[in-house]
């Protein structure tokens, strides 16, 4: 590859220009507006006035493009969250996130990475905080499934069956388990075909939380209902050996449920394998969320 060293002035120019691009847009008038008067003086000084606009206004085209492009990327990555907040409020959070975490990758789809965690810090005591964070986690899980590589499902052999109890099931990157306290997956599906920027009302909380498996298939991402204990078991299986997961579940359930548990657990385990929730068996501990499926 080329060894030529770029001129020093190019690095300085690009630093000043980059500062202009990332200048926050003003929200005080109720619309997002560039504020050319506040631009880095060195960047403005490097640019000529044009036939249609002076140097700061010419730079403003890039400043607006930077923000609107990235707001669009975050809205696409977190569509449910964006609609619950409404795009105006969502962009406020997105702007603060991007100032704190400017994109580093050539892949623009990485720009929203970590937004759901940032939202947890920035939402403060918003009355809908818990529901909004649940929405953000669902959006993040959906996004992770879409971006996951191809993964062959685990089809156990006789030898696998023999070592199953003391091994850990490796989660498929194309599968996530979601515990839902508001009917947000239903809302996400409804909003997929309804474009808009205004906030949509938060639905009433569910009488009981419910578990889902999100599964990427060739036709798209499907959500499959799970029984309550089934969801708990699958979540435990993500991080424990099969033996430890079964023991933890048994300990968690009330005594009257315990008698039926072994048979149920066997059925849930078999169904999870059939559905392709796992890619294999491992004996080492899990290495983190990036390794396998997500639990929300």
């Amino acid at each position: 590859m080329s060894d030529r060293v770029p001129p020093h002035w190019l690095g300085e120019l690009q630093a000043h220009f980059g500062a202009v691009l990332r200048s926050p847009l003003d929200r005080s008038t109720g619309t997002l507006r560039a504020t050319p008067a506040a631009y880095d003086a060195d960047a403005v000084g490097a640019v000529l006035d044009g036939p249609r606009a002076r140097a700061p206004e010419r730079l403003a085209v890039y400043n607006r493009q930077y923000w609107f492009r990235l707001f669009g990327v975050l809205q696409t990555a977190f569509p449910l969250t964006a609609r619950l907040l409404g795009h105006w409020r969502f962009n406020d959070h997105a702007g603060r996130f991007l100032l704190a975490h400017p994109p580093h990758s050539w892949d623009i789809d990485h720009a929203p990475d970590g937004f759901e965690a940032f939202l947890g810090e920035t939402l403060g005591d918003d009355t809908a905080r818990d529901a909004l964070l649940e929405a953000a986690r669902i959006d993040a899980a959906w996004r992770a499934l879409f971006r996951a590589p191809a993964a062959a499902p685990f089809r156990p052999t006789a030898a696998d069956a023999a070592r199953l109890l003391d091994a850990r099931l490796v989660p498929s990157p194309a599968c996530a388990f979601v515990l839902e306290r508001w009917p947000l997956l239903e809302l996400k599906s409804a909003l997929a075909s309804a474009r808009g920027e205004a906030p949509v009302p938060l639905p009433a909380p569910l009488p009981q939380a419910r578990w889902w498996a999100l599964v990427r298939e060739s036709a798209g991402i499907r959500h499959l209902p799970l029984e309550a204990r089934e969801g708990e078991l699958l979540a435990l299986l993500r991080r424990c050996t099969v033996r430890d997961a079964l023991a933890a579940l048994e300990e968690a359930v009330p005594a009257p449920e315990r008698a039926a548990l072994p048979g149920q657990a066997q059925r849930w385990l078999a169904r999870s394998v059939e559905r392709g929730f796992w890619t294999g068996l491992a004996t080492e501990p899990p290495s983190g969320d990036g390794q396998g499926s997500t639990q929300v």
Partner: protein
Amino acid sequence: MSTRSIARDALGLGLRIPHYPWLFEHWPEVGYFEVISENFLGPALPPRARLDAVRARYPVVLHGVGLNLLGHAPLDEAYLDALCRLADHVDAPFVTDHLCWTGAHGVSHHDLLPAPYVPELVELAAERAHAVQRRLGRPFGIENLSSYVEFGRSTMTEWDFYASVVRESGCWFMLDVNNIYVSSQNHGFDPGAYLDAVDFSRVLQVHIAGHTREPDGTLVDTHDHPVPDAVWSLYARAWRQGGPFPTLLEWDDRIPPMPEVLAELAKAREARA
């Protein structure tokens, strides 16, 4: 080197997500498709599966927006490795990107940003573009930008700058006539003079697209409208001066149904007459 070829007068289309349902049902006659390289460099399965379905029926060329040829930092080796793998995978007849910078000092701006037109940067860009082409093992084309600023430091015209980089790199010109028109209006130069300086024997492909006029008169390269008459006129002039060349329509936002996009592409034939 690709085993697939594109006719010198082929008409191609920039492939975008909204096209897929109609495309996969009708498989229209299109000379080739161009895809944005970065959308397919990651491991995600759905984009790759769609791309494989398309490349089974059409030649596919790659168009990048993230090479950062004029960035202050060295070219990203991991990015280039992934680009080479993708070009091999789709057997791309050629690969293109822009003569611009897209990020600096560890921050990616995700925009196609101009630099001053000076001989010092001709040497830098030419050396890097040459290395990219050699690494790809297939023709590499450099696209001219739409731009909204000019730098006081520039000592060359835009067309001299591009021509010099193409000549010194041994690469190709990815000539975007909409970008010439947009920049000519924003900076007050004659787009015809630009075309007069182009060595059409080095033109790999020509892009056409629409743009938007801002309230202050600035033209912005939005790719969200049909190709305006002024751009068709410039395209016709380019064809008279240097045709035939493969021609590709870019429509990236407010994308109408695919038959409408294909009808817009077909207008290129009328413009050539």
